[in-house]
């Protein structure tokens, strides 16, 4: 008998690798017992409620573990270079003697994509499990989106898509290469 899928997914997402399986195992045992004694709907309600009330505690545990630090580093190592590169291109364009607009030369955007790829790949190489690699890939994509949002320079749609796709892709690619290569 399986517990409610959404609640279990939330539990694994919030708890992370370190605690997720243990907590999920304990809850599952109790869930089975409740289903047998009080019925499935009561078991489902109990399971969902246990997950909801554990969210804050589990998040706290996760923040104290190295996993949160790794995710924060992944986010920073993608967002910071992108933001700095945007500032650098603004500076370069403001040094054009007769000035120019916010359009960026394709070469500059290509440098941004390259740096995002390198940084994401480095983050991906630090992942130790598939679940962690997925999480890091998601974080790099979110960090890239966050860094693109306040960009002063023009961001053509193709460039945005390239950044948002290459960040998680290169992270996962390097993880896969290290694991199976």
């Amino acid at each position, binding site marked *: 008998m399986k517990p409610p899928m959404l609640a279990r997914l939330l539990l694994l997402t919030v708890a992370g690798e370190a605690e997720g399986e243990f907590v999920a195992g304990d809850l599952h045992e109790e869930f089975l017992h409740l289903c047998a004694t009080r019925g499935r709907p009561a078991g489902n309600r109990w399971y969902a409620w246990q997950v909801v009330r554990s969210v804050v505690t589990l998040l706290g545990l996760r923040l104290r573990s190295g996993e949160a630090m790794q995710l924060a580093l992944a986010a920073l190592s993608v967002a910071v270079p992108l933001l700095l590169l945007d500032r650098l*291109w*603004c500076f*370069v364009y403001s040094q054009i*003697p*007769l000035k120019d607009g*916010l359009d960026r030369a394709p070469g500059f955007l290509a440098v941004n994509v390259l740096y995002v790829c390198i940084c994401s790949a480095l983050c991906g190489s630090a992942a130790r499990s598939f679940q962690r690699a997925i999480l890091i890939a998601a974080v790099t994509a979110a960090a890239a989106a966050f860094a693109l949002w306040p960009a002063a320079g023009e961001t053509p749609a193709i460039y945005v898509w390239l950044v948002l796709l290459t960040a998680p892709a290169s992270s996962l690619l390097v993880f896969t290469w290290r694991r199976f290569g």
Partner: protein
Amino acid sequence: MKWLKWIGIVLAALLIPPIVTLFILSLRKDAGHLHGSIEIAASPQQLFPWLVEGAKLKQWVGWLVEVRVSDPANRGVGTSCVWVMKDANNGGRPMEIVAKTREYAPPSHLVLQISSEGQFTGDNVYELVDLGNGRTRLEVDSRFHFSNWFVSLMEPVVTPAARKKMIADEVRLKALVESKAEVR
């Protein structure tokens, strides 16, 4: 500590090669040099005012918002004016550039010394070659020196961007001058 070491190595690997490349490129002979040439279906007499009159300059020089001239009647050698540019990459802040006339031979030759305090100095040379049949080839030759060491280092990326802008300006000038010449 291990993390810090790796961060240092990664940063060095990402930053040192571009910096060394930029430094080597910034030492090249034609650093800060721009050249543009365009053929315009108008006579040099029709074209020349577009290079010196503030109201006309504002129409084709991108991001130029104001031209302040101390004495509009006098445009000879030694006179100067202030070009106010809107710097979109610096929050739209206005930036003043002093353009001093160094050589003035209408309608074929004009040299402006342009400078912005603490940023750059340079010469803009305009040659108007009469091709006959109401056509003119405008040659623009510019050479800039940047005051700041970091900008000098970034020169290999600044100059191509400036060249792209110069070409865009010339294309705009051609369209404007030719549309006005057609009306006449």
